């Protein structure tokens, strides 16, 4: 045992170096986005490009807000994603409870049906859903963004069921003996114990609605109903090579996601570990 071990030191240096390179690869695009968003419309085309703007043009952000209603997009996105999240939490935990705890005819077949629908590509449902939404008159309204998602998908139910299966049955049996009905067991015993997985499902469904592109692209057509992602896409259509404004808009869309990630990263990463391995 020597204190100085050259191969170990070399290995350590290699690890640090690779981590540094990876961090640059991951973060440089974001740095470049923010820096570009602060350049003048002339400065953005200067070659070779500068690593810092000559003049910090914060007014680019004002121009973005003037050019497109990003505030409206933001509120719409919050409204859609929070509504869907609440609906999913309620309906998926109810159904997960039924699958995990209650015995009823056809339970296993029904659960297999749930699993099977997870395999279907989104394109298969999107074409007929467009026809249905059109028939209902929901196109380009908040209803098309919220109602179909409100009842939760098979994934959330699957997640809730898997987690509830791991909770010891003694707890709900004790409550049953004390004369509690099923709904009380669900609200007073199960829900408090499933808080960790509820937060995972909450973050997942929030992210899914927040980041979705194809659904709003197909279903929405006027700016007053747009989400942030669709708003950014339509902004790109108008300002195709106004790179500084485009990057300012991209930064605006990024900020709420980054903030949310800073708070929820533990749930997101742990949730993915759990669902990835058990799903």
């Amino acid at each position, binding site marked *: 045992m020597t204190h100085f071990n050259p191969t170990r030191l070399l290995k350590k240096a290699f690890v640090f170096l690779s981590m540094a390179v990876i961090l640059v690869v991951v973060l440089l*695009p974001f740095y470049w986005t923010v820096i570009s968003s602060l350049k003048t419309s002339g400065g953005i085309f200067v*070659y070779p490009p500068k690593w810092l703007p000559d003049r910090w043009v914060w007014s680019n952000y004002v121009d973005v807000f003037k050019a497109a209603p990003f505030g409206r997009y933001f509120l719409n996105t919050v409204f859609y994603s929070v509504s869907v999240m609440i609906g999913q939490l309620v309906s998926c935990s109810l159904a997960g409870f039924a699958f995990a705890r209650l*015995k*009823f005819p056809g339970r296993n077949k029904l659960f297999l049906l749930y699993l099977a629908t997870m395999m279907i590509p989104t394109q*298969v449902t999107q074409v007929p859903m467009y026809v249905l939404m059109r028939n209902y008159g929901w196109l380009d309204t908040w209803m098309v963004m919220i109602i179909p998602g409100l*009842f939760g998908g098979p994934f959330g139910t699957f997640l809730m069921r898997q987690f509830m299966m791991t909770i010891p049955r003694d707890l709900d049996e004790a409550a049953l003996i004390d004369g509690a009905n099923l709904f009380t067991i669900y609200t007073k015993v199960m829900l408090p114990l499933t808080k960790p997985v509820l937060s995972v499902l909450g973050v997942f469904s929030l992210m899914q609605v927040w980041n979705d592109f194809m659904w709003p692209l197909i279903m929405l057509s006027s700016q007053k109903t747009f989400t942030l992602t669709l708003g950014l896409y339509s902004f790109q259509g108008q300002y195709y090579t106004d790179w500084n404004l485009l990057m300012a808009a991209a930064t605006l869309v990024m900020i709420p996601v980054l903030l949310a990630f800073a708070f929820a990263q533990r749930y997101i990463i742990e949730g993915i570990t759990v669902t990835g391995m058990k799903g």
Partner: protein
Amino acid sequence: MKHRSKQFLRAIKKHGPAYLFLLPNFGGLIAFTIYPILFAFFMSFTDWNLFSPAQWVGLANYKDLFTWDPFFWKTMGKTLYYVVLTVPGGIVIGLMLALLMNRAMRGITIFRSAVFIPQVMSLVTVSVIWRWLYNTDIGLFNYILSVVGLPTVDWLTSEAMVMPSIAIMSIWKGMGYNAVIFLAGLKAIPSVYYEAARIDGASNWRMFWSVTLPLITPSLFFIGVMSSIGAFQVFAEPFVMTNGGPGDASRVYGMYIYQNAFRFFDMGYASAMSYVLFVVILIFTIIQLRVTKSGGEDISFM
């Protein structure tokens, strides 16, 4: 008869609550997933543009797809190319990243979270940003290449490079996700295996191939299946970055479905296309299942 209805009532009383718990979720599944799936299947046998009544055409849509439509093979080929580029690439890079992160070190969780950031961004945001980075004349990547003395690349403007460029971006976006899943698999390997191998005098390289790789087959399978299912449905990246160009070089199958359904309003044809995609994904998943199974380790997928 009376006995029967009494039994039915008792069954309702006994199992009614269970169905009540299921009702919102299952009702939603029927109305917004199962019914549309069946509806699309029916539509795929019709000629329908939404504005005049649907015409039953039997298998004509499917026949047209395989025998008449040159874009079917072209866009399917592009999509397969994208799958082949992103899935193995994503697996190798994700695994390397996980091996790097699988160590006790200060700040490793911060590193893990940082690598994960691209994954939580929307595809549209990332695509808009990378379109700028890939800019041929003044983009960051070509600037860096020219600084280190390498020839610049027509990332999104040459037919040969556009798909690889989109694939690089996708791998960059997904590598944190893959790494986190692989990391969970690596952490689940009991250390006794490594100790035993070390006593037998195995090198690190040998240990990776004979201990690590066989024992993370479940993660490998999971990422392989999930990322190919996702990759076959690729849409937003080429749609936002190149709109299928230059020429048709990045027109993928998902975009062609979109065009048929929402540009040409050829609903029947688009439904047939989406069912073909479903079958292709299904076949691909079964092949992967077979290949991983023959690799030795049993898969406990559920």
